[in-house]
């Protein structure tokens, strides 16, 4: 399929979606949730997809954004919006702090280190009373000023998330075509080869990680704005990290619209199974999630979008030659 046609179809669907869901608040909320998930997964895609450094700890940054937004409200009475730049700044600083030691690790080591750091932060946050400890924090219940961005309808959130996603994808697209984009892809294919050709791999990985962290914090802030509540599990839980990774991987990691496609499939699926299965659904939803992930890893290791874009061309099989003993 021609990329331009496919991307055009996805863009058109997102633009006319509010018109299709007039008078159906449930679907407006669903649309907003899809876009929100796409923001998080697209931010993850910068480091996990393009640079190939599979972080399983992005919840640290998501939580930083979400907590900053509500911490300035619950401690100082400021509108949550004031915490958004603060959250992004903290996330970028944490990324620099974590990234410098851990990005030297390759492959699985990096993934495990990010999990450990995320769990570490979650335990610390749970025991930090200034940000609500284990109970978490709430945002403004009713809008005091328009700056609070507290709406009863999901539609305003849909447009806000759409604007942020559009800006994020534009940025990603610019990076994709820039020197940095080429460097990141070279690092992903073979860091050793990239280094030997003079790419400052460590520095570019760190840049991508910090940028990804700041944008993930933005996704966390948007979450806090819409839901008006955050606790250690919904901000820093391991599933937050895992969902970003899964959405990007299902759609196609390292592809511009891969995370969006993944979110368009997984978020409705999660909402449907939650509403169909009711109270006991929470467990079963993740059973379904787990099964889907296993199937993706087994049969679609490069994601749906890669299959759509390459239908017609022979499929490429990276890394197949490296492991002859696996055959």
């Amino acid at each position, binding site marked *: 399929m021609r990329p331009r046609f496919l991307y055009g179809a996805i863009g058109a669907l997102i633009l006319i979606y509010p018109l299709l869901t007039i008078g159906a608040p449930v679907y407006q909320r669903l649309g907003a949730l899809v876009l929100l998930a796409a923001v998080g997964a697209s931010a993850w895609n910068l480091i*996990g997809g393009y640079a*190939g450094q*599979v972080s*399983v700890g992005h919840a640290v940054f998501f939580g930083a954004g979400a907590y900053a937004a509500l911490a300035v409200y619950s401690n100082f009475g400021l509108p949550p919006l004031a915490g958004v730049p603060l959250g992004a700044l903290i996330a970028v600083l944490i990324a620099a702090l974590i990234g410098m*030691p*851990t990005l*030297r*690790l390759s*492959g*699985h*080591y990096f*993934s*495990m*280190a990010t*999990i*450990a*750091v995320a*769990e*570490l932060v979650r*335990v*610390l946050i749970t*025991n930090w009373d200034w940000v609500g400890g284990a109970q978490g924090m709430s945002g403004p219940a009713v809008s005091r000023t328009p700056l609070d961005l507290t709406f009863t309808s999901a539609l305003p959130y849909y447009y806000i998330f759409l604007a942020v996603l559009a800006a994020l994808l534009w940025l990603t697209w610019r990076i994709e075509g820039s020197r940095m984009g080429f460097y990141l892809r070279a690092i992903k294919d073979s860091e050793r080869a990239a280094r030997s050709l003079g790419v400052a791999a460590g520095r570019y990985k760190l840049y991508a990680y910090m940028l990804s962290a700041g944008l993930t914090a933005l996704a966390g802030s948007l979450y806090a704005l819409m839901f008006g509540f955050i606790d250690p599990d919904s901000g820093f839980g*391991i599933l937050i990290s*895992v969902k970003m*990774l*899964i959405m990007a*991987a299902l759609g196609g*990691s390292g592809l511009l619209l891969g995370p969006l496609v993944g979110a368009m499939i997984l978020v409705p699926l999660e909402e449907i199974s939650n509403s169909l299965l009711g109270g*006991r659904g*929470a*467990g*079963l*939803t*993740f*059973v379904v*999630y*787990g*099964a*889907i*992930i*296993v*199937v*993706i*890893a*087994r049969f679609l*290791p*490069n994601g749906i979008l890669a299959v759509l874009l390459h239908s017609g061309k022979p499929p490429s099989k*990276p*890394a*197949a030659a490296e*492991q*002859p*003993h*696996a*055959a």
Partner: protein
Amino acid sequence: MSAILLQVIVSGLLIGAVYALFSSGLTLIWGMMNVINFAHGDFVMLAMYTAFIVWTAFGGGPAAAVPVAAIILATIGVLSYFLLVRHIMRGPMLAQILGTFGLALLLRYSAFWYFGANFKTLPDDMLGAPFVVGSIRIDAPRLLAGTVGLLVTLMLHLLLTRSALGSRMLAVSEDATAAQLMGIRPERMQAVAWALAAGATGIAGALIATFFYTSPTVGETLAIVAFVTVAFGGFGSVPGALVAGLLIGVIEGLSAFLIGPVYKDVVVYLLFVLVLWIRPQGLMGKA
């Protein structure tokens, strides 16, 4: 004061031996085929539920639960290898991580759905009264778990280094093609590795269940303990996992005692990041 400290250290060593046992499974698979099993902790969780079922349905103690859990988990390990791991090993790294992570979620939330989120515990006095040696008091389940954990880890080490099977597995891990030319089937050896690794989690899980609460998410914490132990001990090294497991058990106990129970995980995770940073090959790993 020193009596309490001694008590903490002994308890730490006993729990550390169990850490060593299930971590040696993780390190075996990693060293042999460069795959991390993110579902490793959830294998331990399944073994804990197995012990719980053996107790509630048949009234069997650890003597029955340990072999049953070992056999069930070894079977699950072999199935995971043939149905999933064998295939994802050929894919990109993201697919490898996703594959075992998906398996982890599948197992964890199947347990959540089936058993519920509530903690389950086996009766405290299942194995009789605690032993008292001088000023130290040791609970019988912990003593049993520590002793068996230590013995089985040592047996696993001997199996890998002193037996023909172990040599064949080592050959496959070093050069699968060459091993194949020598008449060794790499897939069969890798399946054996999964059986051994998962069987070790079975024994460890059934032992842990005798003194620790069982819940669907307990595997998450245990998986991180296993990662830390493996990273600390050196990837692929069973003796490294043993030393690291004992050390981590003691460090955990001491930090819970000296700083506070909440922070024992914090200390262990910090240690992990520090080890990865300063000595990524671990104490006994190959560089």
